[in-house]
């Protein structure tokens, strides 16, 4: 017993001291970290829903849906938080739907680890193509010129998989959430 204490007291003491140090750091920084994450989400929502004054958070079929209201309290649109398979790791995005759920008002990727220079273009202007597409039909990512009347988006050259995965995530979440929006209106 004495040998055990002799040899290990320092490890035990350091363990306790370091644990306190970490607890202190975590406590003092946690609020800031959560605030950063919330800000990233709010900015994404503001991009996909044209007018947002206040939001209500709902859970629809396992997905978090933000019901966005304008200044007068009228329904301005829906923002749906969705996660799905990507090329490298999971992709998390926010998809905006018009108040009646008929149109996609935009999408914004908020977390991804797609290939820099190719797949990570999904984070930028490329996503604007989704604005105004028909939410009642499947969206398709195709190579080459896209025909918007057929609900198509043009896949990123060299990143067809990333483009398809984003489209799949959007299709999947819209299909599951859209029929349920009516009852939350």
């Amino acid at each position, binding site marked *: 017993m004495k040998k055990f204490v002799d*040899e290990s007291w320092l490890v035990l003491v350091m363990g306790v001291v370091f644990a306190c140090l*970490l607890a202190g750091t975590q406590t003092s*920084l946690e609020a*800031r*970290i959560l605030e950063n994450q919330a800000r990233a989400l709010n900015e994404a929502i503001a991009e996909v829903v044209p007018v947002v004054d206040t939001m209500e958070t709902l859970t629809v079929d396992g997905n978090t849906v933000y019901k966005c209201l304008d200044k007068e309290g009228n329904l301005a649109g829906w923002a749906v938080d969705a996660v799905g398979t990507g090329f490298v790791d999971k992709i998390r995005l926010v998809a905006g739907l018009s108040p009646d759920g008929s149109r996609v008002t935009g999408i914004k990727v908020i977390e991804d680890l797609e290939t820099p220079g*190719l797949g990570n273009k999904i984070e930028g202007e490329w996503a604007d193509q989704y604005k105004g597409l028909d939410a009642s039909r499947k969206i398709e990512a195709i190579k080459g010129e896209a025909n918007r009347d057929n609900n198509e988006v043009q896949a990123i050259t*060299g990143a067809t998989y990333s483009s398809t995965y984003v489209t799949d995530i959007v299709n999947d979440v819209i299909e599951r959430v859209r029929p349920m929006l009516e009852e939350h209106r």
Partner: protein
Amino acid sequence: MAKEVSNLEQFKDGVLGNNPVLVQLLGMCPTLAVTNSLENALVMGMAATFVVVMSNLITSTLRNLIKPHVRILIFTLTIATFVTIADLTLKAYIFEVSKKLGAFVPLIIVNCMIICRAEVVAIKKGVAKSLADAFGIGIGFTLALSILGVVREILGSGTLMNRQVLPDAFLDGHTWVIMVLPPGAFLTLGVVVGVVNHVRARGAKGGAA
């Protein structure tokens, strides 16, 4: 290093003569993974510097109390603690960059460069020398990462610190995408290490080093 070296020499040795990345070829994982822009390289370098400084400080302060056969455990415990602190701090203050660095900040824990400094210097030498060594190694690491970051960001994205530095004609579809991807890291590192070895070999011949 049979003779005692001064603190300044110990510092310079880490930055140049014994640069962890370019000469010792340690810490290759972050070197290859996060140097696709100068910003990422600098942040990674500073985080690793913070960890190696704290690890050397604590190890050399306690060096007479640490029992030889539990030393690795103590090194790892110390490093893990400060890596976690660095990770939380980045998440709180530079959220965007920390998202890009992703898992590579927590992975500083297994950066052999840091444990190597504890084992080679901090467990044997005094606090001042260990700190000089840690700053030298940390700055040397940051410098090497930054060289890679500058080359890869300019050629791969046409920007530096996210500001455009090459003409529009280059950016419009002529960027070397490969430089941003993992092969670009290997190519750049190979060339830089080659140049460093060439210079060292010439220096040795001339008797200067």
